[in-house]
């Protein structure tokens, strides 16, 4: 019982400002998948057109890979990591152990975003939440359309913090880190990262 105490982790670990890389916009929405009405759907879009983007990923080595894992892997394999311009993430439902229908749902999420950004085979998908339930695609589809049609994409701190919140499940705080780095040649660049996870955590990704 010595250990019992309350730590205000939100105040300790959530930033109040950030520096963000050029050429990205993010948006998030409460689609209604989460029963508590919290943000549960996020989209990140690359808006830079000066040269093609590149992408890479590592995935769970669990034998029961969820539909979004298999679908994103397929996208990366077919594109060799070139020309990936968007990520769509939902929380509240993991779309795992959902069979062929789950694969179709993951692909539909990707297709919707591809159509909105006008680029085929250009989106990765991630999901997190309860295992063994199908995605509520009516809510997810409406949410994706809503983000694009209402131009809810931004590159300000609040937009980045909100998309970090949108991927949370039982997390007690959103995990958002941004930092500017300098190369040996003096060129500066920026990295922003977000993660979610609180339980079921001992990854071994490859």
């Amino acid at each position, binding site marked *: 019982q010595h250990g019992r105490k309350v730590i205000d982790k939100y105040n300790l*670990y959530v930033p109040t400002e950030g520096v963000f890389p050029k050429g990205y916009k993010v948006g998030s929405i409460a689609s209604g998948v989460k029963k508590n009405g919290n943000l549960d759907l996020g989209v990140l879009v690359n808006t830079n057109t000066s040269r093609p983007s*590149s992408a890479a990923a590592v995935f769970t080595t669990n034998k029961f890979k969820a539909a979004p894992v298999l679908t994103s892997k397929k996208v990366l394999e077919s594109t060799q990591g070139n020309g990936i311009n968007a990520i769509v993430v939902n929380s509240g439902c*993991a779309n795992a152990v959902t069979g062929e229908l789950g694969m179709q749902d993951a692909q539909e999420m990707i297709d919707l975003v591809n159509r909105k950004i006008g680029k085929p085979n250009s989106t990765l998908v991630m999901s997190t939440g309860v295992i063994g339930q199908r995605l509520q695609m009516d809510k997810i589809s409406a949410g994706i359309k809503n983000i694009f049609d209402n131009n809810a994409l931004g590159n300000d701190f609040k937009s980045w913090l909100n998309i970090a919140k949108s991927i949370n499940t039982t997390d007690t705080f959103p995990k958002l880190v941004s930092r500017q780095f300098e*190369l040996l040649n003096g060129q500066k660049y920026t990295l922003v990262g977000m993660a979610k996870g609180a339980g079921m955590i001992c990854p071994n990704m490859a």
Partner: protein
Amino acid sequence: TLLGYFVTDLPIASSALQKILRFATDRSFNCISVDGDMSTNDTICMIANGAVETDEITESSEEYEQVKSQVTEFAKTLAQLVVRDGEGSTKFVTVNVQNSLTFEDAKIIAESISNSMLVKTALYGQDANWGRILCAIGYAKLDNLKSLNTDSISVSFIATDNSEPRELKLVENGVPQLDVDEERAAQILALDDLEVLVDLKTGNESAQFWTCDLSHEYVTINGDYRS
């Protein structure tokens, strides 16, 4: 489930990006444990859009190693935040295994300690139960015992607040310290951040894992997840 993504405005060739992400993940997200469970959905991805006007980073670029190192440190920061959340955890624990014959063995031992429910409950209860740490080292799934010599192993708690003595030895060269300063142990274990140091003295490789304590709150949260 662990999900995460990094995006950068640097131009990085996709093959270099995959190598950088793999290297960074193996030293960050693949070195954390909250409860020892691996999800069906764990994914970390990275996009580089090249909005910064500079030469593309490839494996042969001068800047490649620098970017790899910067992404790795960045990934560690993010990975550690996941452990700090830890669903009701109250302590952030660095398990540092050093002087192993191989990096792989050091990592397996660090992971074994980090996943032990009994080590984690002892940390929650601020109990300097070094026996559980040794036990977890002993059942670590090593291919062989070349990195593990029971006559040379030392285990310590390390204070993270700069107080002295910084190191509290629990086992030294295989010999348990039966007169452990329990008062000092209690002081160290009361800290929010802790370090467990395992010195194998069988080689020069080391590995770090980050874990947390296991609290009542964890059971409360996960006993009622689907609803």
